[in-house]
């Protein structure tokens, strides 16, 4: 049946954990593209046959016309699945740009999942966000939860070095050290899993 490989591709995307990228399935992706070309070839040859018989392709509704129609519909179906696969992955990549941002290296386990053009898209989108923020002189990717306390207690989970400059002081972020930081300073570190918020 037509469109089954395309369906597999979309299904694979949907079966992943929501909001997480699986590794880009190059093999299946290329297979669907190949099928698009196969459908196009079949479509073209049916059209040529009709033209040779002197028939108007759009209006002469014979078996060749309907065969061509089926191939056209299968082609657009495959296209839709391919586009949806890339588009929905791009949504997750944009989320990464928001949460992790351009300044920081993405963890390698995420970079491995990117397809060829996805890394560039990540960078491009991060740049667009940065540009917007600098035009407004306002960061929109911090302050992601409503403020309760201006300062929060955090524990550092990985060695981040000393003399780190924050908005109101400088600090040494050795692993396991605990600090009282401005919420907006701590947010990006927590988001990247480098610190955790402590309560109680």
């Amino acid at each position, binding site marked *: 049946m037509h469109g089954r490989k395309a369906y597999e591709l979309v299904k694979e995307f949907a079966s992943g954990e929501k909001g997480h990228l699986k590794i880009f399935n190059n093999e299946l992706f290329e297979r669907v*593209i190949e099928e*698009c*070309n196969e459908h*196009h070839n079949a479509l073209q040859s049916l059209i040529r046959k009709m033209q040779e018989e002197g028939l108007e392709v759009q209006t002469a509704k014979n078996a060749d016309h309907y065969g061509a129609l089926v191939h*056209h519909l299968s*082609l*657009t179906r495959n*296209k*839709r699945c*391919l*586009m949806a696969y*890339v*588009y929905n992955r*791009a*949504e997750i990549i*944009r989320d990464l740009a928001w949460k992790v941002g351009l300044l920081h290296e993405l963890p390698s386990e995420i970079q491995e999942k990117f*397809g*060829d*053009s*996805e890394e*560039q*898209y990540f960078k*491009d*989108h991060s740049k*667009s*966000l940065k*540009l*917007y923020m600098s*035009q*407004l002189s*306002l*960061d*929109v*990717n*911090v*302050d992601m939860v*409503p*403020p309760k306390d*201006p300062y929060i207690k955090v524990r550092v989970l990985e060695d981040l070095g000393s003399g780190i400059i924050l908005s109101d002081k400088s600090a040494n972020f050795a692993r396991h050290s605990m600090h009282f930081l401005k*919420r907006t300073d701590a947010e990006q570190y927590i988001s990247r899993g480098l610190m955790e918020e402590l309560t109680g």
Partner: protein
Amino acid sequence: MASSGGEWSAEQIDDYEALISTTDVELLKKAWRNEKASPEILPFEEALVKRAKEQIQLMEETVDDFEESGHDPLIVSLYQMDLDRVQFLLRSYLRVRLQKIEKFMFYIWKTDTYRNRLSIEEEKFTERCIRDMGKHLEETVLSKMPDNYQSVLKQSVISEEDDMVPEPQLDTFVVAKCERTTRPLYLDGSRQSAGFDSRDDHFQMVPGDLCILRYRPFQEELTSGNISLV
């Protein structure tokens, strides 16, 4: 301003309230709530955003002054908390709008009503989003499609309209509060469209009413300020 701790003078309370300018915060909160709840992008509150930014700046300077002059730390932290709240509202408001742009970039760009609702910076952002996304889709999919199937807006050249463009779901349900009496609306059986009618079975909200309704028929009531979303 007196710097001793303890009771607040009337002067201090007045200054505090003047600085916080509750009306603008309320307006910002409402704009934020509307934008969060609405499926479509709403008109940009340019003047309000400008004022909010100015006030934030003023509050930041005040907090800095207080800290330097050894002001009562309780009062300082109260100002700080209010500052944080206004900043959060402003950031969240802008953020929600950017995320709507990311979701409906093609549709917003080609629909004048929506395009005109963007700030200058948002318009530039939209342009870049489209360029980046277009490039990405082109490289991964479209350039590999047969001729006649390479458009990012039309499934194929025989499509009569742009049939690949995601649109906001205007028939979604929202919770709306009435601020001013709405115009009488005649809703059809499915309550999906409205027309002006003075027939008896019209629908009207009065101030204080809280209703769950489909968004679409009430678009104008929202932009005119007769209702606000919760």
